[in-house]
């Protein structure tokens, strides 16, 4: 049940990412709903779940983007791995930690996406433009992350309180 709910959430996030999210563009950047979902899952369900959902969500993003299949998934994984150290070394995480982790994950994701695209021969933006876009996206995602993690937590409690198998 939890997996089905998670998969449905990620598919919805990936579709919304490529259809609705660009409408909310500010400073050239728009929210990355899949990244927010993956960071939320990592903080609530742990690293291994975060890694698996980063892979699934990234592959869904790859299906809506130009170029090969894999770069978005690859770019999401290191951010989740970094958060695992954060979780391990923190007694009581608060909204600020979660927001900062979303910003750091966004920067890592952006850098790795550009690097991977370059590696497989895809066009990449100039360094200055790329840095500006990554910074704007990091701020955007950090601001939305507290809402994102609240949604993930509510969904988790909904799934837990749902009908249990006999």
């Amino acid at each position: 049940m939890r997996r089905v709910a998670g998969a449905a959430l990620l598919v919805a996030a990936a579709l919304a990412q490529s259809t609705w999210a660009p409408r909310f563009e500010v400073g050239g950047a728009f929210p990355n709903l899949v990244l927010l979902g993956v960071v939320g899952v990592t903080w609530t369900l742990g690293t291994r779940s975060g890694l698996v959902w980063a892979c699934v969500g990234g592959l869904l993003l790859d299906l809506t983007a130009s170029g090969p299949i894999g770069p978005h998934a690859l770019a999401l994984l290191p951010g989740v791995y970094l958060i695992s150290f954060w979780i391990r070394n923190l007694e009581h995480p608060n909204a600020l930690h979660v927001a900062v982790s979303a910003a750091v994950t966004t920067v890592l994701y952006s850098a790795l996406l550009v690097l991977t695209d370059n590696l497989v021969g895809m066009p990449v933006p100039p360094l200055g433009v790329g840095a500006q876009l990554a910074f704007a996206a990091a701020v955007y995602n950090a601001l939305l992350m507290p809402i994102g993690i609240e949604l993930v937590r509510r969904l988790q409690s909904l799934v837990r309180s749902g009908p249990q198998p006999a």
Partner: protein
Amino acid sequence: MHGGRAQSRSTGLFLFLCAAMLLLAMVSQQSWAAGARGAAKSALAPAEGAMTSLGAQVDRVTSVFGDVSSLRADNQRLRAADEQLRRQIVELNAAAKENASLKQALNFQKASGHRMVAAQVIGRGPDSFSRTMQIDRGTGDGVQPGMVVATGAGLLGRVREAGPHAAIVQTLGDPQSRVNVYLSKSNLQGTVSGGTTSLGMEVQHTLGVSASNGEWALTSGVGGGYPRGFVVGEVASVTHRDASTSDEAQLAWVNDPQSITFVLVITDFLPS
């Protein structure tokens, strides 16, 4: 002890998934995998189309209050009509100039129009780095990678990838896009490149002639990448550089990618 083992298991999973995704990216980038990749991407196209329609319906429902909906529709219709008229004026002026010297060489059929396929925009690139759009027409409709994409207002971009029922268009807003153009009044040549907010143009110097605000930039056809005569944008500002062989200009693009819902794919022109 237990935490250390869990972290080690996570590290193993992380490394395995990274290696798998890198391998998948390299394999799916190969030319022989293009068909399978296109088919996989087309699979999501119906869902994206449905989401886009749903978004449009939500827009309509929320704009029921007041006359926002009708005003917006009027505004859109008038803007489209205005853009079309402006394009026609620019193209007619440019064509008239050319006709004087090139009339005999012109092939009427080539100059009069192209074969086109209309397509609906069903999605946009999921990240801010690539300015792409997904459309609901693919190889099954005659759309091929490299084909030029336009709107009623002017040039939009080029088809980058095509699957059976969907294709991905790289717009002129993509930082990597390049188009050779000429200016409608001064006839100066230059290259337009994409940017996050506006299009930039490198204008080649000619003795005694300089670019000015309000001029229209049209595709020059130089290099064979795009057909000649498509409107790209209007010169918004020019920075003269005495020490250089070129000036820098900013163009107001005739297309607003955020508001485009339908595009035209030109099927009888492929870049040389």
